[in-house]
């Protein structure tokens, strides 16, 4: 895609909450267009840069659902600092695979894993360093306001490229029928 570089590089933060990083892998699938992308944007907090907390940004791309207190903190930090927040992939949009645990009581799940399975000690870990699990796995839009949603498990590299370039050039992002998918 032929694009005029913007006056000032936009800042992009990305994060994976309770996801598999598959959406980030999909972002890498834009291949050589990555070189074009880094001409247009600068990455702040992201697994790509390994920066752990983010400053003021323009766009946040977030994959994964919200399943524990740390996810809430990360999501809120990104919401606070980013002008535009995009839920990327099935988990971020609907809860996805992690939300399969929503049929069970979280207390029972923890006890089963840490107390009843063979080889476990009979105690649920209580280190204050550990994030606590929420009663259910939530999609992003139940915790913070979300500006855009890109469904897909994962969305294709082409879909992410189209979405990002639309956003960067100030257009309403649109996906055509082929790249808009839910699986």
């Amino acid at each position, binding site marked *: 895609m032929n694009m005029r570089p913007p006056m000032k590089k936009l800042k992009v933060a990305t994060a994976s909450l309770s996801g598999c990083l598959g959406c980030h892998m999909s972002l890498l699938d834009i291949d050589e267009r990555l070189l074009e992308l880094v001409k247009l944007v600068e990455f702040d907090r992201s697994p790509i840069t390994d920066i752990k907390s983010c400053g003021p940004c323009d766009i946040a791309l977030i994959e994964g659902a919200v399943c524990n*207190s740390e996810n*809430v903190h990360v999501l*809120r930090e990104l*919401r*606070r600092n980013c002008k535009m927040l995009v839920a990327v992939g099935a988990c971020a949009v609907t809860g996805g695979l992690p939300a399969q645990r929503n049929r069970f*009581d*979280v*207390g029972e799940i*923890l*006890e089963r894993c840490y107390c009843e399975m063979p080889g476990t000690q009979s105690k*649920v*870990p*209580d280190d*204050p*360093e*550990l*994030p*606590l*699990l*929420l*009663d*259910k796995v939530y999609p992003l839009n*139940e*915790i*913070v*306001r979300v500006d855009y949603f890109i469904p897909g498990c994962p969305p294709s590299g082409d879909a992410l490229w189209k979405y990002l370039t639309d956003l960067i050039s100030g257009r309403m992002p649109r996906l055509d029928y082929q790249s808009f998918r839910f699986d």
Partner: protein
Amino acid sequence: MTEAIVEPEVLEPIIARYNGDPGNLLQILIEAQNALDWLSPGTQGFIAKSLDIPVTHVAAVVQFYTHLYDTPRGKYRVLFSHNITDRMAGSPTLMAHMLKRLKLKRGVVSDDGLVSVGKTSCTGMCDQGPALLVNNRAITRLTLRRIDEICDLIRARAPLANWPAHYFRVEDNIERADMLLGSAYAPGEALRAAIACGPTGMMAEMKRSNLRGRGGAGFTTAVKWEACRDAPGDERYIVCNADEGEPGTFKDRVLLQSFAERVFEGMAIAGYCTGARKGLIYLRGEYTYLRAPLEAKLSDFRRNRLLGMGICGVPGFDFDIAIHLGAGAYVCGEETALIESLEGKPGRPRIRPPFPVTCGYKNQPTVVNNVETLCKVTEVAIHGGLAYAGTGTRQSAGTKIISVSGDVERPGLYEYPFGVRVSQVLEDAGAYDAIAVQISGAAGQCLTPQEFGRRIAFEDVPTSGSFMVFGNNRDLFEAALNYAHFFEHESCGFCTPCRVGTALIARILEKIHSGHGARYEFNELNRLHQLISTSSHCGLGTTATNALHDIMTKFPTVFDRRLIRRDFEPGFDLDAALARAREVAGRDDANAHLDAHLGEGVDA
């Protein structure tokens, strides 16, 4: 689940009565449930085998209709009418009282398998609510005392037939009568007048009358009849749409209770003009109590040669009417869904075209008319088309029956010539402090007092005939939430915009109701309204958000005072969502808690 017991001696006669015809599957299931209280897997399997159809077909029908049960619901199945007018009349308190008396949770059967209590969509008793259904029999004018009596009767296992008859009395409440409700009826007069004109002459009278359908859409009846008459087909059908499911509408109930002869004659005249020999009345399940009197009147008609072979002695004029029951599905008021239901299938709307007039019941040319429309046909026959067109307005000839309920002194039926102002109806009904009127039920529009000068007519405010009046102590948000739950429940689930959209609307309204909604949610409602109303498959979806949109735009304070100023907040308590994990981990440190809000800097 209880062991599935099949009772062939119960089922076989029912199936035989319906000739083992899979087209009568819905009727067979309704009767089977009346006899057995629920439709066990064994019952469904037996019926499937007897009709030689896959058991999945039977299960699909059972699961589609709200009033068919594939799990036990007790010997007494109590359903409170959940319409907004019943709620305003105190139905939530009454239901809570009954649940307490019977020590029950809503929707859960009592341990002894005796009784269950739940909610159902509008039962069409809005002028004499709050109302409930017990095993599909309507009980009106509920009070705490009557609830106590009902609880005692249920506990004593008294058969429904032995319950006091006045419980089941349904009043007509005709408050203003005009051409239809006020005229005397002479048996066969309309039919003989039509026969005197001949089929083409009568069709010409219908054209001259400019009679339009009273179900709400207002399609010209003569055009429909002509299209049916001229369509190629082996057999033609006249269907009377008595699936009066639109919340707040109850005129068809009164017409079928006290003016049924005119409906029959209207159908016979339609048959005479179109060449149809068979008529079907699709009666909603909530009006099952009307079936026996209707059958008796049909027998009288046949005896007096107003139905059957050679009607009024005219050779070749053969027409007869059968009654089909529905089982709790609002969407079956849509004509193609109704036809699907008549054919014994789940009531999912068909893709149109082809329209029923060329390809309807059993894929034959079919006229589907509203109960009131068919009554009006008799007026056209007796007085002639020109005389009929003389009342009302230019595009809306004749009179219209309006069902008035809610905050009025005299709820009931009001018949006016078309063109009457909304304010006139309100004044006559004794609505002195109305802040809003919901016209045409949940799918219609919500009028503000500034609009009360508008006229009831297809040119201005079209209506299927319902006025739900809200007094100045009412919160229209409650109405919006009620309609949202109604449509979520009644969506047939066939198309995604309606199935998912109506549920999303309900969730967002619940969030606003709980005090967590922001401007963001309000904007989402607008977006969903645009989406659902433009991309749904049938009229249910396209109209499902009309009232909501009216309330949002015309009554801004209804939402404004409920929305939080914050940019966004979760619809639940985040800290409480950690409580279970805190408990099993035995933690209560600072990291084991979450603030309710996002933190500084984002509050608007």
